[in-house]
Every structure is written in C-alpha cells, then in structure tokens.
C-alpha cells in the first residue's frame, strides 16, 4: 500500500476527470468519422494527467492559456461539456458560437482564454495577462500550456525572457509529448532537456512525470504557491505522450508501434487507478461507475451539440469589433 498526497476523495475526483476527458475525446473521434466535427481535431488521449493535475491545482480565479489541443483543459476548467462539443459541431451553443471549433475554445467567465493554433502564439498572451495582474497587484497565476515543439519558436524565448525579467506571475507548463507533429524531440530540439532553456533565463524549473496525475498536482501546487508569493515565473516540463495521431490526418509513419505500446503501459488513467487502489483500495465497481457516469455526461454533450442551432449567416460580421465604426 503506497501513500498518496491526496485524500481518496480528491484522488477519485482526479481520476474521474481523466476518464471524462478520455471518453469525451474518444467520442469526438467517432463523431469526426460521421463528419459532424470537421477541420483539425487534435486529441489529448494519453496526456490527461497533465491538464487534470495542473488545472485542479490552480484557483478558479487563475487564468489559463492553452493550445489547439485543449479539449481536456477546457473540460477540467469547467467549461460545460455540451458547450465544448457544440463548438466542435460548429453550433451557436458552442463556447465560441461555433466560430472557433476544436482549436479555439474560449470561456472568459471561467478565465479560459483559448485555444491558440499558431504554435507558440499563446505564450506572449499569457505573459501579458500576468503583467496586467502584476500591475494591479492581483495574486493570480496565469498558467500557460504549450508543447515541446513550441519551445523551438522564437516567441518561447522572448516570452520566458519577459516573464523572468519582470518577475511576472506566469506558470509555464510544457507538455512534452516527445513529438512536434511527426518530428521527435531529439530531431527538433538541440537539447532535449527543455528545462535548460528556463534555467538559462533564471526561471526555477523541473521535470515532472506527466503520466502521474498526483505528481503533476503537487508540482503545480508548489510552483503556483511560489508564484503567488511573488517569486516570479516557474516552469514545469511535463513528460507525457500522445497515444493517438497528431490530428485526424496523420498516418503516424514517424514512430513505431513498440514505442507507442511502451508508453501505453504508463497510461495515466490505469496508473492513477492502481495508485488509488494501492493507497485506499478502489473497487472495480467504483471505477466502472465513474466510467458509466462519464459516458453518460459525454452522451448528453453529444445530444446538446446535436440539438444546437447554427448561427444565422447574417451574424457573420457580428462581434468583429466592439465598436463598429465602418
């Protein structure tokens, strides 16, 4: 029996959310096959421990900036499942009225600031949100998610430099899933230890096992607390893996099945289940119940999306500006 830093209740809540994200996305892949979702769809399957562990360690008032692979983040943040699914259906009950789709989820009421599809493009935004907080003496944290591929972009360096120089309350969360699209980390980054870049900017940083939701939770709590104490930015490199294709158009020629199989042995959901069972005992029936409840939530979201209406075409120009002066 191993010990855990969370209560059983909290641990189960984490597990529940990982299952919810997993089932939601598997359902997305299905409806994509039915062409109800179109465009790009980037699934997070395998990486759930990162979004769940990190976002649950944050306060509701903290801000979140994510990438185009952000269904999980939106869901964990509390964006209603139906609003996320409807967005991918392109319906006006979607969380961006159907204009954003899978890559551009927004829910400002929950301080979920999107959904950025230009790799690296969200980082300066996060820095700016943190700057606004600092200038207003708010103790909020801005959590910024990005992939290993994003660390190649110039904006990554520029954002780290600004955050470190001005000691801004930003939490950089690098979701290192070992690939930028089809290019393995060692083939796109001169130094596969991405933390070294943070260290070059004097930002305290560490590697975290991104398949272990409890470790992610603890590391994020610790980093967020330091940021709230006014100690400036923090950086976590979360080691994880995407089990599925980069997007729906990917033949996955760039990696072999064994590698994928090896990582699947570390499935974050199975891992958390084992850990919880070890620490507190967790009956198979309990897990099945979680799964069934999640599945039902997902089905409800599909129904909600299906029932959604389309934004009228006459509204195409609406909300281009706050003040239309044309």
């Amino acid at each position: 029996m191993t010990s855990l830093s969370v209560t059983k209740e909290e641990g189960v809540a984490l597990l529940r959310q990982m299952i919810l994200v997993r089932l939601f996305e598997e359902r997305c892949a299905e409806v994509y096959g039915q062409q109800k979702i179109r465009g790009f769809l980037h699934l997070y399957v395998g990486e759930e421990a990162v979004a769940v562990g990190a976002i649950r360690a944050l306060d509701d008032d903290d801000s979140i900036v994510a990438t185009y692979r952000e269904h999980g983040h939106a869901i964990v943040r509390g964006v209603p499942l139906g609003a996320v699914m409807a967005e991918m259906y392109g319906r006006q009950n979607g969380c961006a009225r159907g204009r954003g789709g899978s890559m551009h989820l927004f829910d400002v009421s929950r301080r979920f600031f999107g959904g950025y599809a230009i790799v690296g493009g969200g980082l300066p935004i996060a820095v700016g949100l943190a700057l606004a907080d600092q200038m207003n003496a708010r103790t909020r944290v801005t959590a910024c998610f990005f992939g290993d591929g994003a660390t190649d972009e110039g904006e990554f360096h520029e954002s780290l430099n600004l955050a470190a120089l001005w000691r801004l309350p930003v939490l950089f969360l690098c979701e290192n899933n070992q690939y930028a699209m089809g290019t393995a980390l060692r083939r796109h980054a001169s130094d596969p230890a991405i933390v070294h870049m943070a260290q070059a900017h004097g930002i305290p940083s560490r590697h975290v096992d991104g398949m272990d939701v409890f470790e992610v939770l603890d590391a994020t709590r610790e980093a967020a607390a330091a940021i709230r104490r006014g100690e400036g930015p923090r950086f976590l490199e979360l080691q994880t893996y995407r089990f599925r294709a980069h997007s729906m158009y990917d033949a996955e020629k760039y990696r072999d099945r064994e590698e994928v199989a090896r990582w699947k042995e570390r499935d974050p959901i199975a891992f958390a289940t084992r850990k919880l069972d070890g620490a507190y005992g967790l009956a198979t029936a309990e897990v099945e119940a979680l799964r069934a409840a999640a599945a039902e939530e997902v089905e409800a979201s599909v129904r909600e999306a299906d029932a959604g209406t389309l934004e009228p075409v006459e509204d195409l120009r609406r909300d281009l500006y706050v003040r239309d002066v044309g």
Partner: protein
Amino acid sequence: MKNATYREAVRTALRRALLEDPTVFLMGEDVGSYGGAYSCSAGLLDELGPSKVRDTPLSESGFVGAGIGAALGGMKPIVEVMTVNFSLLALDQIVNNAATLRHMSGGQLAVPLVVRMATGGGRQLAAQHSHSLESWYAHVPGIKVLASGTVQDAHDLLLDALEDPDPVIVFEHQFLYPMEGPFDPDAPRTSPWRAAIRRSGRDVTLITYGGSLPKTLAAADELARGDIEAEVIDLRSLRPLDHATFVASVRRTHRAVIVDEGWRTGSLSAEVAARLAEDAFFDLDAPLERVCSVEVPIPYAKHLEDAALPQVPAIVQAAERAVRGRRT
C-alpha cells in the same frame, strides 16, 4: 493657436493619456531611459515611473503579444513598435491574435490595445528601415488603422485610438516628427474615422494620408498657380476607409490622383482606385492616376531615395494628366 512639432504633439497625447487613465501604460523598446527613438516619450519615465513607461527587450513578437494579453487583462496598453520595419516580427500577434480574438471567441474577448509605430522613408535609412506597409495593416479585419499627417492629428488620433475599445494601429510618419504646425491640445476632436478635406477644389481630387499629405498640399498649391484647383483628401483612417468622403469628392471633380508612399503594386492606393472604379465609375472623366514609390528596396543615396519616393513634381504631373489628358 500655438505651433508645435508633430513629435511634441505625440508626446503631449502620450503624457495626457498616461496621467489621466490608470489603465494606460506605454511599453516598447527604448521608450523609457532613452526617451523613445524619436524622443516622443522624453522625460516620461522620470515623471511617471517604470510601471507606466516600460522599456522592453528587443522582442517585438513577445511584447506586442504581451500587450494583447495585458489588454485582455483589463489594461489599455500603448505598445510602441519603434518602426513599421520591425513590426514584421510582430505581425503574427497582430493578425492572428489581436485581430481575431473578439470575433473568433464569439464576442467574449475585447482587445483594447493601441500599437504605435513610425513609418515611411525619406531619411536615408536604406532598404530595411524605410518601409511603408500601411496597406498590409489596412487589409486586416478586426483591427483599425489610423495615420496622422498633421501635427494636430499626431495628438488627436492617438487619443482617439485610446478611446476606442478595439485594437488600433497608429502610424506616425518618421519624416514628420520635426514638422511644425498649428496645435491646440484642447481643440474639440472630429471623428478619426472620417477623412478630412484639407483643401477644397473642383478640378481634381488628390487622395492621400500620412507622410504624403504635406507633399500633396504643396502640389495642390503649385497646381493652383497653374489654374488647377485640386481638392486634397486626407484619409486619416486607413481601416475602415471613409469611402463616402472620397467617392463624393470624385463625384464632384470627376478626376482623381492617389498619392501613397507604398510601393505601387498592392499599396493602399490600389484599394482606393478599385473603389472608385466600382462606385464612382460613371462619374469619372479620366483614367485614375497613382503616384507611389518606385518598386525597389529604398536606397540609401539621397538622389536615389528621392527618385524612389513620391515627390511634388510627380503629383503635379499626375494631376495635370488627369485634368488635361494623357499625352500619347
């Protein structure tokens, strides 16, 4: 009304906005201890402190993006990108974030951001420091674009931009900073989205903006000596364009010359011309004329730079062609 320089007018507006609005701050390269590459913020760091006046690292994409983020966070940033030449490094943030966030989020977000930059040539700064890319910005829905061609506008348009809740790009022409002109900081402001008729005339309409305005006015004076009365329109707002004002003018004069420091192909002059050919077609009595920059990287040597940029004689000749017909 007193006289002031264009630079002083910018500085006056900056200072006023920074003093009056607690959410306004200025950030950019060397805006602080250097006082601004063009001295537009001289003394403001000492007066207002490093939180209101922020020197940034050389990271155009980073700090323009941070401006967008700060705007999302409730601030009203004035981001100075020293010149339009360097703004190429920040275009992704402007086009993909500032311009899209409101629409793409279904109206949830607003980006009350002002980006100021110096534009244009004429100072022998050669190919990498003499761009006029206003047409690129004017192409992008979701942002608004202003360009000041007078001392008063150098002040007024900046304050107008700050009062607007959307992202506004403000172009100042680098050649105009030392220009003197009448300036009253308290004069009532006209809408920045309306073009101004800077001179009335019945024979031909000269349409321009920003750094080409003084040259166009000089050309109009010269034309007047040759008995051609030119109407001079200063667009002021480049996005949206005040279509109604220039179309109405051309309906009166039946002839138009567009003066634009951008390279001819794809400059803003093309859009103005296209609109006239669409919406004032039956009123036009002569082919449209454009006076633009020659399509080469702007050279350093003065005589070559002069030859590359629009100049008064070329404007005069174009207007004469419009009025008297082309020689063949």
